[in-house]
């Protein structure tokens, strides 16, 4: 019973954070056909901004989240302008593969700049809120987790509202559905692309603050979330927002169950095994459709 309960609790917490990171990746893929490998760096940068605001400057966690959002938004736009925009429409190269490589290069640069700047030591980031509720036997639920889950779910909902209701969000979805038609309707494609990557990165940055309070801020803090986000988006089907969020919780569940019932060192290999299986059985993920390359 306590096993099941603790699995459920960590499923919801892990799933919400993974959902945030994966949401950005799947959105960028849906719109730009770019598998953005720099999303892990955005998580890392978010963590460092959180550390700088909360620990160094001693300001409130709300400010830290806002600052991380703003900083990673800028980094996301910059990444798009430097490593994706010049390659759009280029003939003779495979856009998806080459941007996979360039965004990866951005991740390399950002991780090593962080290493130069902050050093290899892990930085402790204080909890957003302290205290916990006792649930059952040895299982307790920290307020921290509740806040994180609430903010993550709120962000996801806000994002869904933004995409479905706002003029700009509708423009983004139009681009994802049909590039040429969107262009004919007067959507300024060249401006949509950087902003999409900015927003996606900003969400990953917020997830980075959460992860840093849970673990540490360090130059390699983005690697694990990036790998998990990759797993989530494959599982959910690249480009599918609902698929990504559903898959985030499914992956959270698998990881939590594997950690409790097998061992934490085997959680990741089990996840990768599951993903290989999913790809063999359903090549485009659970909710994915086969998408044609464009651009």
């Amino acid at each position: 019973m306590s096993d099941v309960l603790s699995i459920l609790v960590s499923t919801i917490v892990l799933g919400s954070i993974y959902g945030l990171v994966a949401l950005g990746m799947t959105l960028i893929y849906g719109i730009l056909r770019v598998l953005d490998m720099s999303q892990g760096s955005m998580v890392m940068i978010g963590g460092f901004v959180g550390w700088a605001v909360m620990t160094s400057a001693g300001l409130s966690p709300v400010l830290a989240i806002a600052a991380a959002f703003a900083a990673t938004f800028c980094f996301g736009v910059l990444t798009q302008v430097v490593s994706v925009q010049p390659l759009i429409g280029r003939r003779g190269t495979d856009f998806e593969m080459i941007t996979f490589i360039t965004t990866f290069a951005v991740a390399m640069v950002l991780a090593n700049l962080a290493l130069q700047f902050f050093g290899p030591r892990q930085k402790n980031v204080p909890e957003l809120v302290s205290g916990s509720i006792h649930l059952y036997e040895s299982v307790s639920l920290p307020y921290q987790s509740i806040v994180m889950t609430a903010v993550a779910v709120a962000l996801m909902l806000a994002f869904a509202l933004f995409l479905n209701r706002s003029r700009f969000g509708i423009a983004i979805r139009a681009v994802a559905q049909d590039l040429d038609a969107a262009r004919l309707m007067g959507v300024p494609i060249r401006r949509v692309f950087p902003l999409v990557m900015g927003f996606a990165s900003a969400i990953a940055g917020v997830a980075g603050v959460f992860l840093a309070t849970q673990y540490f801020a360090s130059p390699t803090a983005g690697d694990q979330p990036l790998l998990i986000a990759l797993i989530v988006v494959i599982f959910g089907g690249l480009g599918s927002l609902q698929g990504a969020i559903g898959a985030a919780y499914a992956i959270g569940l698998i990881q939590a169950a594997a950690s409790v019932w097998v061992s934490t060192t085997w959680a990741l290999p089990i996840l990768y095994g599951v993903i290989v299986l999913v790809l063999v059985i359903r090549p485009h993920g659970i909710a994915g459709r086969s998408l044609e390359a464009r651009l």
Partner: protein
Amino acid sequence: MTRRPNPLHATFAPEKVAIGAALAVLAALVPLIYPSTYGIGVMVTMLVFVVLNISWNFLLGIAGVWNFGQLAMFAVGGYGGGLLIIHASLPPWLAIAAGGVGGALLAVLLALPTLRLYGIYTSLLTFAAAQVVQLLIQNDTSGTTGGALGLPQVEGLFGGLDPLWSARAWYWLCLAFVIVVAAGLALLVRTPFGLALRTLRDSSAYAAARGIDPRRYRVLAFALSGAVAGVAGALYTLYNGSISPTVMGLTPMSIYVTMIVIGGLGTIAGPIVGTVLVTIVQQALIDHPGTQMTVLGVVLIAIVVFVPRGIAFEAGKLRDRVVRWMNEEEEAPPAGAVAAGSSQSQESRLLAGREGS
């Protein structure tokens, strides 16, 4: 096409062969001119990575399969060879061959689930599979692989020689592997098999219409590439006397991909040029370890944006221009012959672009 031209005949320009042979001889002389055990050691490691990168580039650039799991084959070859030497006391030469067999077997295993996938999904699956291999090696608690610490104390080759001559012997051995693999690949891309692979890459629908079975060719390409990567892994283990899970993962992968892309994806000379250049950059920045990856990352983006075909391709164009210029000097042919000559050189340039030099 009624008459199939001999694929191994016409497309090898004699000057290309001459340049290749001259470069190989020059490369073989380097350790004699430069008698530094450390320096030669760096070059040996570089040559091992050249072998790995050629095998990787074969899948990525020539077959057009987005395989990002090549390091799994490298590691399996390395661990397999090392374990066979430790436990079965196999002679090192056989261990190298066994590494190749291990790499090929894993590559075929990896190729099978990718058959239904294309594009980015292939890269994700292969990458995930490589992560599984790394984590399996790292989390092994039975003591076979040595876990995170790695496989220690593999007795290598040339132990009886003094350090300098041992380094030289290693250099020549690895250079021989590079030459054999590069020349073999240059031949292979000109055979019907190589042509079929390139057709599958450029136009899979057309290839299928011409009766090329994508599955069979992809599995074969994986097997060949995996065998070479496994040999590279076994060489790595034998040379270093050890191997650890850190040969895999995101950072090594990014370095090798940088090497291949800088040199020129899908060219024969590309991985060689790229690996040499990146190794030089790494050695130049060895006193500033933090800046290495930053510089490499910036260079990678700059190359992709400004020199998308890679350095080997641009160098090939330059060489063609020089050759044309030399031909013009020699003889001033009549106007008709100039037109024919230039169209032919354009064709050969196209070929060079596809196949490298």
